């Protein structure tokens, strides 16, 4: 029992951050699974994070009231972003969303009344790992349902070939707009979760670091199934801790190399339903051939 407690104490924070990062990754996955590469999760996270921090700090809102507020804030920001950005061509969309991340930081830095400016904000409320696990589980259920619904099917179609999907009556704009709303809500929750975990946030908290963590987690885990971002976030969060334990001197280099190797050898990520399908097909072919050979033998 004691060993377990020690282990939890040592790696508990890694688990906690993995769960927060999983929320960011899911938010990115929400839009990526409809074929949109967007870094705006960071923006939604900032909105959710500062909103939750201010509500709990200034107005004494409890945790479970602050989370829905953060989700709403993130969702609203997402609606605005989607309205402005969805008509851009995909490459521009990626650039525009990255630019928006930079703008968000500058804006946050220059609005100290809302964000504490360079000095940041102390967040008086803390989220327990169990509460975080419940939040993540709730989000996961949503993504699981989405995956198995008409929206899931339509979003896969839009991602693979938006033009073809549109000639089947699926409006890519509508699907991607909904995806942005989901991304905003989950991103806002993630931002609040990060605020309640760190208990201190500043404009630097919601910056390029998160953008790359979430996109790397999503792609690493696999962006073709909701399980991918969650697994990816766990791996990507544990990576620095592991590297620190193994090669403390060149921790960052080692982290980069591992990321590189995974991408080169598993470019579609760790969780890839298509690869399972391909494997199944290969197996089926083998069996058919074996059967045919057996039949030939029987005839001979």
């Amino acid at each position, binding site marked *: 029992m004691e060993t377990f407690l*020690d*282990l*939890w*104490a*040592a*790696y*508990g*924070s*890694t688990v906690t*951050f993995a769960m927060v990062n999983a929320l960011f990754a899911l938010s990115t996955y929400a839009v990526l699974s409809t074929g949109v590469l967007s870094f705006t999760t960071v923006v939604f996270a900032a909105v959710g994070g500062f909103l939750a921090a201010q509500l709990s700090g200034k107005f004494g809102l409890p945790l479970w009231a602050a989370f829905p507020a953060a989700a709403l804030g993130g969702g609203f920001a997402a609606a605005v972003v989607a309205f402005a950005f969805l008509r851009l061509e995909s490459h521009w969309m990626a650039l525009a969303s990255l630019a928006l991340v930079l703008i968000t930081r500058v804006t946050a*830095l220059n609005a100290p009344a809302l964000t504490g400016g*360079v*000095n*940041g904000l*102390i967040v008086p409320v*803390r989220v*327990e790992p169990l509460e975080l696990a419940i939040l993540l589980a709730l989000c996961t259920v949503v993504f699981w349902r989405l995956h198995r619904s008409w929206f899931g099917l339509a979003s896969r179609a839009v991602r693979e070939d938006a033009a073809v999907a549109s000639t089947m009556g699926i409006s890519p704009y509508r699907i991607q707009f909904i995806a942005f709303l989901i991304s905003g809500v989950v991103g806002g929750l993630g931002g609040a979760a*990060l605020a309640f*975990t*760190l*208990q*201190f946030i*500043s404009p*630097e*908290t919601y910056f390029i*670091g998160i953008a790359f963590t979430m996109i790397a987690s999503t792609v690493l885990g696999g962006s073709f199934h909701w399980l991918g971002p969650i697994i990816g976030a766990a791996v990507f969060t544990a990576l*620095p*801790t592991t590297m*620190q334990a193994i090669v*403390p001197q060149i*921790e*960052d280099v080692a982290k980069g190399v591992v990321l590189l190797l995974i991408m080169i050898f598993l470019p579609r990520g760790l969780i890839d339903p298509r690869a399972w399908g391909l494997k199944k097909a290969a197996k089926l072919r083998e069996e058919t051939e074996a059967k045919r050979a057996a039949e030939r033998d029987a005839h001979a």
Partner: protein
Amino acid sequence: MSKASAAARTLRGVLAGAAALAIGYAGTAAAAPAAGEYGVGFITENTGPLAAAGVSYHRGAQLAVDEINEGAWIGQGVKLKLNEKESGSDAARAVQALTQFSADRNVIAVTCCILSPVAAALKPVTTNAKLPLVIYGATLPGLPQPPYVTSVVGLPGPQEVKMSKMLAETLKPKTVAYFVNADNEGFQNRFKAAQKVMEEAGVKTAGVVSILSADTDFTAPATQAMATNPDLIMVWTTQTPAAGIIAALRARGYAGKISASDVISPAPVFKKIGAALAGVPFPIVFSSEISSSPEAKKFVEGYTKKFGEAPDTYSAQGYTSLYLIAQAMKSLDGKPSREDLAAALGKASAVEYNIYGGLPMVNGQAEVQNSLVAAWTADGKVVRWENK
């Protein structure tokens, strides 16, 4: 977790600590912690934007641990062991490192942080974990919160005021232009303190040029400051901008007086900028070439031997943080708990062994008494500044 129970626990900790201290105090002469190796968590910043300073802090701490162990400074058989974890000046990574330290039963105290926001992020975590934290670098007022959070870094203010008065008297400038970090509250405070002194002395503000920490090109700000035609330019910014600004001012042909802060004191800054730094006064509390107390000399000697270069103001702070922890250890009996150690740290009225010629502590915050005004010579030595 409810706040009430946390507060209750904190209170219990404090009471227990106070009780332990009272017992310890009663028999100071007899106090000796049980022999053994005690871990001190050191959150390094050897990579990331502040790595240059981070390496110095780390080295100072390493040297202190060596000295403390070799001389059996705490007591016979009592040794400290530095456990390092890297944060890269990132708050999230620092929090992760701290929680890992708190899980390691062998770690009795942690020392950390150059950036105030990172220190602020660690405060609630360390208080929750009841793990004493000594801040070695961050200088935002209000960071220390005894017993769990203490700081060995003097707040800026007095040194800047002292130097500004000196400059106002000796240089007698009519106008001053200031460079200030728009995104660093510590330097804004230093700037305001200096400006107040100058204006009280009847020196007009010719202009204030603000820059950002991440800036690298200072040609335009230099042009802007020079256009105000000041008698003196005061540079209140973080290290890289300060070095860049002075280089740019000299490169553009500014021949007037410049002053700066202790950020330009480390040797690599001179190596980088060279003679342009010569004669630029800066306030400093420790200089390997000027500080002359026996403790300072021993520090410089040991450091130079171990690392092949002279220590700077950052290594001095890293060094001091370990001595404060050792001092608190020394006052405890038996196998010290984290709570006991925190209480001892919170109660400390001074860092007894220091290289500053005295370093009192008030409410867990070190206060600088003795500061000097120094400057680089053209051939790379730090000397007391004189108006030439």
